[in-house]
């Protein structure tokens, strides 16, 4: 379990993390979602004691990270897969972790196998690794101590689709076995398919958090008809405020059954009626983080 309470970090004239509080529970995958520069990485660095907080606290398994006696055996951390000495071989990097934690030597081969790095690949220097291979090596380093908690910053970056699938299954299995997983991403779809709980951050502040089901439920309905004008009028007459969505469809905050009844009563034939689902979450993500997006206001 990871508990973050009122965490803030200010640099001269700039607040990178602003009063962030959330809990990542055991047995669940918590997705930490936000656009680039939202403060995800800074928050994670504070959690693992690489960056001092300006105020607030972060505890892992009930203790400050710096108070963990042998952190690698309780918390697996992957903050940046490229942050390795380029002149070491992958095997050597794992061996250093194995020795620091005093683990049996065989763990290195176990981990290489678990992340599908071949023996030949493990003998190559990290300089020659692709980003995907570095991510696999980083995951292996995080897992080698058999920790209860995983803290992973953008672990899917650089992985191919099969690799992303693999990562997802691995983290799912890990959480199902009772582990705590906190992973960050700036890509909604990536996190949507794996996370149980979501923490959405923008501009250093938490803008939404809850279970994925809750956040999806709040997302409303997508409805489509050949008679868009008639449908709009009927929905507005019923007191809803539909907005244009994705090429001729409408989106409202009401649930699908209400929207269906209104359309039936108005005699408008529908061609599509569904819960806005992930699409709604995406819209929420874009809305919530609109002012921090470099593209400016999201359409």
């Amino acid at each position, binding site marked *: 379990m990871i508990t973050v309470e009122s965490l803030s970090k200010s640099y001269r004239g700039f607040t990178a993390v602003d009063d962030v509080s959330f809990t990542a529970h055991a047995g669940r995958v918590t997705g930490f979602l936000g656009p680039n520069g939202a403060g995800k990485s800074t928050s994670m*660095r504070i959690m693992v004691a690489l960056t001092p907080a300006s105020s607030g606290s972060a505890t892992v398994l009930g203790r400050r990270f710096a108070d963990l006696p042998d952190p690698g055996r309780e918390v697996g951390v992957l903050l940046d897969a490229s942050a390795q000495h380029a002149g070491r071989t992958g095997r050597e990097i794992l061996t250093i972790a194995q020795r620091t934690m005093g683990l049996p030597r065989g763990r290195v081969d176990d981990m290489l196998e678990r992340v599908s790095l071949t023996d030949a690949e493990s003998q190559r220097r990290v300089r020659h690794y692709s980003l995907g291979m570095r991510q696999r090596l980083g995951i292996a380093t995080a897992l080698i101590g058999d920790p209860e908690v995983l803290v992973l910053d953008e672990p899917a970056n650089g992985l191919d689709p099969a690799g992303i699938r693999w990562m*997802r299954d691995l983290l799912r299995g890990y959480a199902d076995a009772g582990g705590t997983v906190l992973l960050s991403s700036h890509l909604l779809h990536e996190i949507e398919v794996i996370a149980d709980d979501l923490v959405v951050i923008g501009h250093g502040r938490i803008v939404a958090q809850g279970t994925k089901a809750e956040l999806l439920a709040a997302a409303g309905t997508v409805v489509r008809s050949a008679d868009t004008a008639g449908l709009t009028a009927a929905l507005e007459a019923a007191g809803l405020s539909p907005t244009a969505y994705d090429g001729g469809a409408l989106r409202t905050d009401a649930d699908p059954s209400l929207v269906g009844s209104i359309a039936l009563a108005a005699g408008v034939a529908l061609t599509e009626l569904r819960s806005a689902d992930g699409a709604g979450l995406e819209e929420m993500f874009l809305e919530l983080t609109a002012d921090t997006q470099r593209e400016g206001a999201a359409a």
Partner: protein
Amino acid sequence: MSVVTTVEPIRTTGTPASTRAPRPVPPRTPTSRILGVELRKMFDTRSGFWLLASIGITAVLATGAVIVFAPDDQITYDNFGAAVGVPIAILLPMIAILSVTSEWSQRSGLTTFTLVPHRSRVVQAKLVAAIGVGVASMLVAVGVGALGNLLGAAITGNDAVWDISATHMAYIVLANVLGMLVGFMLGVLIRSSAGAIVGYFVYSFVLPTLSMLLAANAAWFEDLQLWVDFNFAQGALFEGDMTGEAWAQLGTAGLIWLVVPLAVGLRLVLRSEVK
């Protein structure tokens, strides 16, 4: 980067709070393990390996050069020691610098300091490992020089001349350890490989020259120089004549140029952000 969207959604509900039994807290990482790992990290890259190997190689080359080029009456242990000592005096501080700065320049510190969050323990281990490697290297160099001296004497047909006392040898070892500490200090202070290496050359070649010039041109500095010029103060160690005053001068100059900046650097390392 694209994301697979065609896969079926993964079940997200009904996960038990925790199916794992509460686990015992592991014991604290012992210092011996940290020390062993830091020692290993000095050898396990190509650059680290060759840097260490170059100490042995240059010792052999320098010894060979003395045998080949020095006149017969100069085949003395003092000369072998001097020839072997010059490359070592430059290489050892580099080893100390890189053992610290690679954590920042190569960013491996992200892993190192999450596995051992008490940075002072890592830094201490690095210091002990670096000095250990330094002393061991000097023993190798002393041995190579001694073999060279024997070989040179055999070639020239003279008796081998052992004209360095054990005390003098200890002074030279101390001077080299101080050189490593300077490298270590620059490492923790600058935390960038390129910056610290440049800093080292400024520190040991530019500053002494400026100090000489100042002493030659400003009368007030001439007497002061002995007390504030660390390089100058270390000269007595290499010469082997350490008087009480020389120790005091080494102390004051060392305080200014080593102890104070080392304290500042250690503070920075312990507090700074690791990115």
